[in-house]
């Protein structure tokens, strides 16, 4: 589904990714863990096309998309829940969600809207209010809902559980698993909640200062002593 080869990316003079390679297969849930500043967000942004890359290749479903524009990638099925939520603050909640389906041509947008409202009822209560008034966690729900609205085939999640109450963290991970089950969505998940993420993931990667340091099945990584010491804290 997604293939990343030797990806380099920098901010000005500082290189943040030094040749990252990884793959996500169709229908998989793959988790990416790493410390602050390791380059997780940079990687996801590169995959979505909103971060310039200086080398390497990104391909989706076998096609090279390294040079494609972000909207082209969305059309091909990529959706991202970005770090820091990035909602459209002055727009209403419903408009935020509808914009998630911006490139969709089908008529089922209404149905999906109801589905998202079903997952996060608080969004429905406030649907016509500006999204900027929502609490941090509520905005996170909105960001997740907005990404779902595009019916992606590849969902990129950058710390989706950040700022969510524990009960909702459970729920979000359930949603991820269910999405894969029901609609075969491929998921690439960046999480600080490494334990939960690796638990639901088929496979995982560990990124350290711009390089992939480890990879393996979710289970294997969970048991790996280095991972346990550095990321799980047990």
């Amino acid at each position, binding site marked *: 589904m997604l293939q990343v080869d030797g990806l380099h990316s920098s901010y000005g003079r500082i290189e943040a990714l030094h040749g990252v390679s990884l793959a996500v297969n169709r229908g998989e849930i793959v988790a990416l863990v790493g410390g602050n500043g390791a380059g997780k967000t940079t990687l996801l942004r590169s995959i979505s096309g909103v971060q310039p890359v200086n080398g390497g290749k990104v391909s989706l479903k076998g096609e090279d998309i390294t040079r494609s524009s972000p909207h082209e990638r969305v059309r091909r099925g990529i959706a991202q829940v970005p770090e820091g939520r990035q909602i459209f603050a002055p727009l209403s909640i419903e408009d935020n969600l509808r914009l998630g389906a911006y490139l969709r041509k089908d008529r089922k947008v209404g149905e999906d809207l109801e589905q998202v409202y079903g997952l996060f009822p608080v969004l429905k209560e406030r649907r016509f209010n500006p999204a900027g008034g929502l609490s941090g966690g509520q905005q996170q729900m909105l960001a997740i809902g907005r990404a779902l609205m595009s019916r992606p085939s590849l969902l990129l999640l950058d710390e989706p559980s950040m700022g969510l109450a524990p009960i909702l963290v459970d729920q979000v991970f359930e949603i991820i698993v269910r999405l894969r089950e029901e609609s075969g969505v491929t998921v690439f998940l960046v999480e*600080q909640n490494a334990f939960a993420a690796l638990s639901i993931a088929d496979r995982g990667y560990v990124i350290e200062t711009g390089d992939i340091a480890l990879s393996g099945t979710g289970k294997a990584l969970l048991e790996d002593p280095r991972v346990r010491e550095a990321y799980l804290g047990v």
Partner: protein
Amino acid sequence: MSILHVEDIGIAFGGVKAVDHVTFHVEKGEVFSIIGPNGAGKTTLFNLMSGVYRPKFGKVLLSGEDVTGREPQELARRGMSRTFQNLQVFFRMTARENVMVGRHLLEKRGLFAHLFALPATARQNRESAEAADRFLDRVGLAAYADMPASAMPYGALKRLEIARALAAQPSVLLLDEPAAGCNPVETEEIERLVRSIADEGVTVVLVEHDMKMVMRISNRIHVLEFGRTLAQGTSAEIRANPKVIEAYLGTHGSKEASVACR
């Protein structure tokens, strides 16, 4: 006498009663946590306490003095300092400068001396920079001192805010989700940091969704739901409170919470 006293406070936005008749008090030197579902009103409560919002009703007492509706800078002068859930970093400044701004109230602020670079200003700058480096070191960001904040990763920025808040040498410190965006290991570092701050006698009011941290560190916990108080008590009491489990913790949170006390 409690150092921070919130009495029957409330505010609404449009139809939403974000905080609704909440009362609590925080004792000097304790770690007091506020938890609750998303949208329960925790951040709003912080905004009310720190003067960012003016309450519709109710009172805030700081060291016994009524400070309701005072401007944030006046509260800062009285020893209150805080961090933000939605990052409020000075992105065009370096990490060190960010923290130096935290020293604002401790700095000599004679405009004349500043305009004409009297020696006192240079001395002051040096002093502030040294202090800033100390605080950066304390939160583990010494390596970032000269980096513009705009280039720092998310997790580091959260800690930068803590350093800035600490630099003001507050007596009451409000932390809004300091561990958001941190992995368990990093969270533990933050936890140790908060612990040490509290040990120095600074009163900490904490909002956090990481139950392991909250349960371990808090002297007392106040639970909000829909802007109202749902429960209040020690970690053990809260953890066992079925209403809290249902509304907030869920299975995962309960597990985390109980892991924490082992």
